[in-house]
C-alpha cells in the first residue's frame, strides 16, 4: 500500500519539475526570440548593418595612446580594438603590481605594534574604501593633474623631464646597433642567476649551508651587461623632450589620463588588498609567531619566513577577486578619456558603426576571457603556495 502511494507521488513531483523547467526554457527562449526579432527590425529601420564585417573597415578616428602602430586614416576598427585592449592590459597589469606592493605594505602596517603606524594604515583603508573609485579618478584627473601648470610654465626636472597639464615628458631611450648584445648579456645573466639560486637552494636543503648568491647575482646581472655595453661602444642614447611654442617634441610622454587612472586604481585596490592581507595574517595562529621567536628569529624574518608563506594560502583566493575587480574597474577609464578597450571600442567604434550588439558582445567576451585567464593563473599560483600534505 505504502509503495503504491509513494510511486505516483514521486513521479508527480518529477513531472511538475520537468514541466516547470520546460516552461522556463520556453519563456526564456521566447524572450530571446522576441528580442532578436525586434533587434533585427529596429536595426533594419535604422539602416545599421549587422555581422562582423566592420572589423576590416577603416577606423578614421585618432587614439591618444597607442602601444602598436596605428594611424587614423589607414588602420581598421580591428586594429583600434587591439590598441584599446593593449592599453587596458597596460594599466591593469601595472595597477596589479603597484596595488599589490602598496596593499601588502599597508596590510602589514595595520598589524604593526607601533600604534601610530597601525592607526595611520587603518585611517587610509577606511578613507579610501568608503569613497567611490570614480570620484577618486575624477579627483586625480581634474583636481590634481589638470591643475598643474600649462606648457609654458612646465615644471622642469633638471631640464630633461617636464611635468605640465598635458602629461609627464621623459627622455626616451634610443637603441643603436649592437644593443642586442647588451640585452642578450642581461638575459644570460638573469638566467644564470636563477640557475645558481636553484642550485644554492638545493644545497641548503641537502647540507643546511645557507647560500651566498648575492655577489654572483650582482656580477651576472649588473657587471656583465655593463662590460658588454662598454665593449659594444655604448649603443644607447636618449632623446630628450624639448619644449616648443605649441607642444613638446621628442622624448616619451605619459598621459595625465593614464597617470590619474593608474594612481586611483592603485590607491583604491591597495586598500582592499590591505584588508585581505590583514585577514590572512590574522588567520595564522599566534603559536607560529611564538615558535619562530622561540627559535630566535627576528621579527622581520618571522614575518617573511613563517607568517606570510602560511598566510598566502588564505590570501590568494580573495586576492584573485581583487585583481579581477581591478581589471574590471580599469574600464572606468572612459570617464576621463583614457583610450582603454571600453573607451575605444564600446565608445568610439560603437558610435561610428552603430553596431551595438556586436561591439558590446565582443567587449564583454574580452572581459570574461581576461577574468578567466587571471583566475586560472592565480589558481596555479595558489597551488604552489597551498599546503602540501603527505
Amino acid at each position: 500500500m505504502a509503495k503504491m502511494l509513494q510511486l505516483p507521488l514521486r513521479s508527480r513531483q518529477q513531472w511538475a519539475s520537468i514541466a516547470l523547467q520546460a516552461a522556463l526554457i520556453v519563456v526564456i527562449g521566447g524572450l530571446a526570440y522576441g528580442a532578436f526579432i525586434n533587434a533585427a527590425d529596429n536595426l533594419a529601420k535604422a539602416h545599421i548593418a549587422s555581422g562582423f564585417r566592420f572589423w576590416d573597415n577603416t577606423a578614421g578616428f585618432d587614439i591618444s595612446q597607442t602601444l602598436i602602430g596605428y594611424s587614423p586614416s589607414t588602420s581598421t576598427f580591428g586594429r583600434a580594438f587591439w590598441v584599446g585592449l593593449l592599453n587596458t592590459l597596460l594599466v591593469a597589469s601595472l595597477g596589479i603590481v603597484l596595488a599589490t606592493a602598496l596593499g601588502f605594505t599597508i596590510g602589514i602596517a595595520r598589524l604593526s605594534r607601533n600604534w601610530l603606524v597601525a592607526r595611520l594604515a587603518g585611517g587610509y583603508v577606511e578613507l579610501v574604501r568608503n569613497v567611490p573609485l570614480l570620484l577618486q579618478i575624477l579627483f586625480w584627473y581634474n583636481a590634481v593633474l589638470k591643475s598643474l601648470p600649462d606648457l609654458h610654465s612646465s615644471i622642469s626636472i633638471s631640464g630633461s623631464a617636464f611635468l605640465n597639464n598635458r602629461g609627464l615628458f621623459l627622455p626616451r631611450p634610443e637603441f643603436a646597433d649592437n644593443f642586442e648584445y647588451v640585452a642578450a648579456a642581461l638575459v644570460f645573466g638573469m638566467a644564470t642567476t636563477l640557475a645558481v639560486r636553484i642550485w644554492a637552494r638545493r644545497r641548503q636543503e641537502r647540507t643546511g649551508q645557507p647560500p651566498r648568491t648575492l655577489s654572483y647575482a650582482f656580477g651576472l646581472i649588473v657587471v656583465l651587461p655593463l662590460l658588454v655595453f662598454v665593449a659594444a661602444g655604448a649603443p644607447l642614447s636618449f632623446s630628450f623632450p624639448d619644449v616648443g611654442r605649441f607642444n613638446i617634441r621628442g622624448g616619451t610622454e605619459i598621459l595625465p589620463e593614464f597617470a590619474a587612472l593608474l594612481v586611483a586604481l592603485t590607491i583604491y585596490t591597495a586598500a582592499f588588498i590591505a584588508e585581505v592581507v590583514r585577514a590572512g595574517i590574522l588567520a595564522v595562529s599566534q603559536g607560529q609567531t611564538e615558535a619562530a621567536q622561540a627559535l630566535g628569529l627576528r621579527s622581520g624574518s618571522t614575518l617573511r619566513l613563517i607568517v606570510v608563506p602560511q598566510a598566502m594560502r588564505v590570501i590568494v583566493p580573495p586576492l584573485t577577486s581583487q585583481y579581477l575587480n581591478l581589471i574590471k574597474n580599469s574600464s572606468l577609464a572612459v570617464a576621463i578619456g583614457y583610450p582603454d578597450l571600453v573607451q575605444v571600442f564600446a565608445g568610439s567604434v560603437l558610435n561610428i558603426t552603430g553596431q551595438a550588439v556586436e561591439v558590446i558582445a565582443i567587449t564583454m567576451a574580452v572581459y570574461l576571457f581576461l577574468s578567466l585567464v587571471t583566475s586560472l593563473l592565480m589558481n596555479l599560483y595558489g597551488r604552489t603556495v597551498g599546503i602540501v600534505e603527505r
Partner: protein
Amino acid sequence: MAATDRIYLREAPAKLLPAPVASTGVIGWVRANLFSSPGNIALTIVCAALIVWIVPPLLRFFFFDAVWSGADREACLPSAQNPEPGACWAFIRAWSSYFTYGFYPLGERWRVDLFFFLLAFGIAWLAWLGAPRRDIGAIYFFIVLPILSYVLLSGVPIIGLPDVPTSLWGGILVTIVVATVGIVASLPLGILLALGRRSEMPAVRLLSVTFIEFVRGVPLITVLFMASVMLPLFVPDRLAPDKLVRALIGVALFASAYMAEVVRGGLLSIPRGQYEAAQALALPYWRMMGLVILPQALRVTLPNIVNTFIGLFKDTTLVFIVGIFDFLRTIEAARGDPHWATPITSVTGYAFAAVFYFICCYGMSRYSRNVEARLARAHRR
C-alpha cells in the same frame, strides 16, 4: 643545632612595590607602542612627520581658511584677509538645491522631501533589529514603498500630482533612487538566483549559474552600456524605456548577481539538519525555504548584504557615464559654472562629494560591524 639559629622566617608578606614608572601609565604605553626599538622610533618619527605634513593643511582647507558665504567667485579668490582661501563652501551652498534635487520643479520638491522621509522611515524600521513587527516593515519596504515612491516622484496627474519626467530628476535624489531600486530589486532577485543555483532542476541551475557568473565577470559599465544601448533595440519602439529606467534595469541585474552569491553563502552556512527537520514536518519547498531556511540564512549573512549594498552605493556613481545626472554628475556640471570658476572650485566640489559618500558608506559599514558583533554574541554560549 647551630643551623636552626640561622633560619630566617618572614612572618608577613613583603609590601608590594609599585610597577616601574617606565612600564605603566602614559609613559609605559608610549614606550611600548611608539618607542620600543630603534626601528620603531624611526617609524614613529616618520609617521608623526607625515601627520604634521597632512593634517594642518587639511584642517585649514576644510575649516579655518574655508570661505563659508559669498555671492559669486569673488568671495573665493585670494584676497588681503585670506591670501590662500581653502574650500569654497559658498559655492556648495549656492548650488546645494541642485545637488539635492537636480532640475526637479521648485513647487514639487516637497514630494522629494516626503520620499526621503518615507525611505528613512523604512530603512530605520528594517535596520533596527529590535523594532516591532519587522515583517510588516519588510512588506512596507519592498512593496508599499516602491509603489508610493513611484506615485510621488513620477506623478499621477489624476490625483493632483503633475508628471515630472525623469530627465528633470538629479543629484542626491537620483543617487538614492538608483541605490534603493538596486537593493529593493536585487534582494528578491538574488534570493531567487541563489535558490536556483542550488536547485535540483538542471535547467534552472544552469540558467542561474550562467547569469551569475556572466554578470560577475564583466564590468558594470558594460552592463550599463548594454542596458542603455542594446535594450532599446530589443523591445518594440513604443515600449522603449526612458534613460533612467534603462540604467536602473542594468544596476538591478548587476546587483542581483552579487546578491545571489552573498545569499548563497548564507544558505551554505545552514546545517543540513534544518532542511531535514523541515522536510520531516512535511513542509513543501517554498514554505521550508520561507519559514525555516531563509530567515536564518539572511540573518547570518546580513553583514555581507550590507557590505554588498555599500559596494552598490558606490557603484551608483557609474550611471554618470551613461549620461544620468546623479550626485557626482551634478558636481561635475556645477564645477564648470563660470560664476564660480576659481582654482579651488573643483577641489571643493570633489571634497564635498567625498564627504557625502564617506559618511553614507562609513555609517553603513559601522552598522554592518555592529550586526556582526551582535551575531557573534548570539552564537557564543
